[in-house]
């Protein structure tokens, strides 16, 4: 409990650091909201026109004033207004987040459901032909870029079968579950494939480690069945690296899967941030990055707590 409080207490500090980083980084990139909107035509503006547009976009003040205003707003729960959407940043993020969250959960389910059994299977068939087969597939999975797999799936479905889930407008889960799943299943497979491959590899090697441990040998010598050795004795200990990997991957996925969202035209967080960067929608980029960082910290915390649950010997926060 003490540990939890201490961890939570560091959150504001980390977020402050992130806020400064993102604020400075996005402003260091050449170009601003005006050139993003007008492109090369921005050169036709007179200085007075430019000033008036800068005031409209809120970039007419020195950067520390802008930063101060932004931070002040956050303390009042106001992340600012997105100039592209003409709405509060928080509203836009909250609207986009369910898709990203759902996609991340689905891909993780696929990854764990496929990757763990495959990894355990390979470990228990170590150095046999079937192990080699699993390892080759996992290697291919890890090295296939998601845009290749995504486009391949889309092409095969549309050209070979003439079907494709509806693209463009996204149906939230609670409004139209069937349509929602049909839209998300392919992207989830695309993301889950590479994710499953990493899970396979890490669970295989963790399992191999554990299987050569003394306690497993003891269990075996006491006559425990092969099944019980693997599932009851070995697996819980082999889970720790899998949890670490899944936690990190999941954290990344919560930041949005830019490429997969692009290909499948899903209005998720990743595409939103990419568009916001291209349109120099400063408030939206800043707010979204802060939100993503916050999620990442929560996921990390949950991973640490999961360690304790998996291995009672681990005591968090004690020297």
């Amino acid at each position, binding site marked *: 409990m003490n540990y939890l409080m201490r961890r939570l207490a560091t959150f504001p500090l980390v977020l402050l650091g992130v806020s400064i980083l993102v604020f400075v980084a996005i402003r260091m990139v050449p170009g601003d909201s005006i*050139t*993003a909107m007008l492109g090369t035509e921005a050169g036709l503006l007179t200085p007075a026109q430019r000033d008036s547009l800068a005031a*409209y976009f809120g970039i007419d003040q020195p950067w520390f004033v802008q930063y101060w205003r932004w931070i002040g707003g956050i303390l009042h729960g106001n992340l600012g207004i997105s100039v592209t*959407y003409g709405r509060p940043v928080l509203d836009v993020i909250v609207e986009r987040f369910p898709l990203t969250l759902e996609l991340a959960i689905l891909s993780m389910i696929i990854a764990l459901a496929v990757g763990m059994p495959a990894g355990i299977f390979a470990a228990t068939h170590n150095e046999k032909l079937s192990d080699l087969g699993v390892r080759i597939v996992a290697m291919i999975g890890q090295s296939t870029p998601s845009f290749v797999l995504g*486009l391949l799936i889309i092409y095969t479905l549309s050209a070979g079968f003439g079907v494709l889930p509806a693209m463009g*407008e996204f149906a939230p889960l609670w409004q139209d579950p*069937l349509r929602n799943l049909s839209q998300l299943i392919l992207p989830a497979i695309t993301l889950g494939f590479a994710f499953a491959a990493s899970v396979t590899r890490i669970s295989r090697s963790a399992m191999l480690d554990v299987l050569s441990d003394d306690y497993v040998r003891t269990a075996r010598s006491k006559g425990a069945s092969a099944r019980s050795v693997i599932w009851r004795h070995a697996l819980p200990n082999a889970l720790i690296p899998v949890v670490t990997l899944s936690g990190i991957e999941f954290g990344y996925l919560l930041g949005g899967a830019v490429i997969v969202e692009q290909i499948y035209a899903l*209005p998720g967080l990743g595409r939103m941030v990419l568009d916001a960067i*291209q349109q120099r929608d400063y408030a939206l980029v800043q707010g979204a990055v802060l939100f993503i960082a916050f999620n990442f910290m929560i996921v990390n915390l949950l991973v640490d707590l999961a360690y304790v649950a998996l291995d009672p010997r681990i005591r968090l926060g004690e020297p």
Partner: protein
Amino acid sequence: MVHLTRKLLSGITLAAMLGVAAVSTQANAATLQMAWSQDATGLDPHKQTAFSSLRLLELIYEPLVRVDASLQIIPAIATSWEFSKDGKELTFKLDSKAKFQDGTGVTSADVKASFERILDEKTGAAARANFLSIASIDTPDATTVVFHLSQPDVPILTAMSDVNAAIVPASEIKAGSIGTKAVGSGPFKLDKWDPNAKEVLSANKDWAGGATGVDGIEISVLPDEAAILAAMRTKQIDFALLNDPLVATLVPKEASLQLNRVPVLAYHVLQLNPSRKPMTELKVRQAISCAIDRQEVLDTASLGEGKVTGPLTIPALATDPSQLFCYKRDVEKAKKLMSEAGYADGFSATVIGATGEPPTAAAEAQVIQSQLAEIGVKLDIKMMELNVYVDAWLKGDFDMAIALNGGRADPYTMYNRYWTKAGNLQKVANYIDDTLDSQMQKGRAETDPAARKAIFAEFEKHLAEMSPWIWLYTSYSYTAQQKNIAGFVPTPTGTLFSLSKVTIQQ
């Protein structure tokens, strides 16, 4: 047969699993399903310059006049117009049936307020520079508008055909709601806009232009053009805008799809920076022009999808490129020019380009790099994110730049920004030439079409010979459609206005 049945069965299962959209498209067959890869960036017709924004806003707002597929001026809100004899007074008669989508009629007061908004520096209007000759605006009655000009300005009429000169309700200007609410007098109303995801348009029943062919248009933003093509194959999408020639050339391979392509006014160009050594030397610039094989750039970078062009891309005014300086590659001449300029051993320079804008930019730079290597010019290619590129471009901070610059239906409006002494983008062109400047001024004032054509032919010839830039080619604008969509007319300006009369055949 067994194989086929199995394939069919698995197809049906898949279709059921994925909840194919085909069912829903048939239910509202009169809605045109459209897709593009880049979404509009805003709703203020006076401030937007992004291609998609203009295409969207042209369906909602109307200017006083329009240009047709052959770039002739035709009526829009104005039914007729006339220049006074001295060319300093331009009078419009408005269509008395024209109505804004909030039900109020379009009056001369709205026209006056709209142009005053464009001219007001505080607005930050994109096209303000085209209207600086407007000295005052009179509104003798509700359907008559008189523009008093400070000098004869023929191109102003063409500039008024742009959606950047759209007429917006005076009441909305007063309320400060232009850009947040879209109230135009065009064929469609904007019901919903979810940026970077979707636009929903419905037919404007009161449109003065008559009934539209479809009840509405739904535009989906599908960022990947290969995915747009896939969605068209499965009939989810009826009509789409394509940018990438690589994707466009795949469309005719699908039996149910049709590709529309039309040469556009925008031009691909290698901009030299004549303020930087050694491009300060005329002979060096000319050598570069002679060393570049424009057709090869077009064939390699764009699969031959386009046409080699000189500076003027307007079909009625363009000169046959083979008549222009060094449009036939001549490496020997180029080498000779280089050594005359004192650069027999060549030089090194950097060329900048924007990633994906146009999609062919990197390929163009690479072909040019290899062609210029033959005369000893070592090019270093620097690709940048679009915004970073625009920033460097506007500052004129480059040796050479690969660019896709927009064209206009009038050569003066298209080029005065670069090649007149007072041009706003003179800093980008970095090249001052008295001849070009005086030719531009003459062309601006000349009202006789034949005389105008002669002036601009001279202008084009001189510009190609001075080679501040190396004009390469114009590409096509592509739209893809299902074959049951009828009535779309592609035009060189890229406008989608004819979607107002498009119908879906069953």
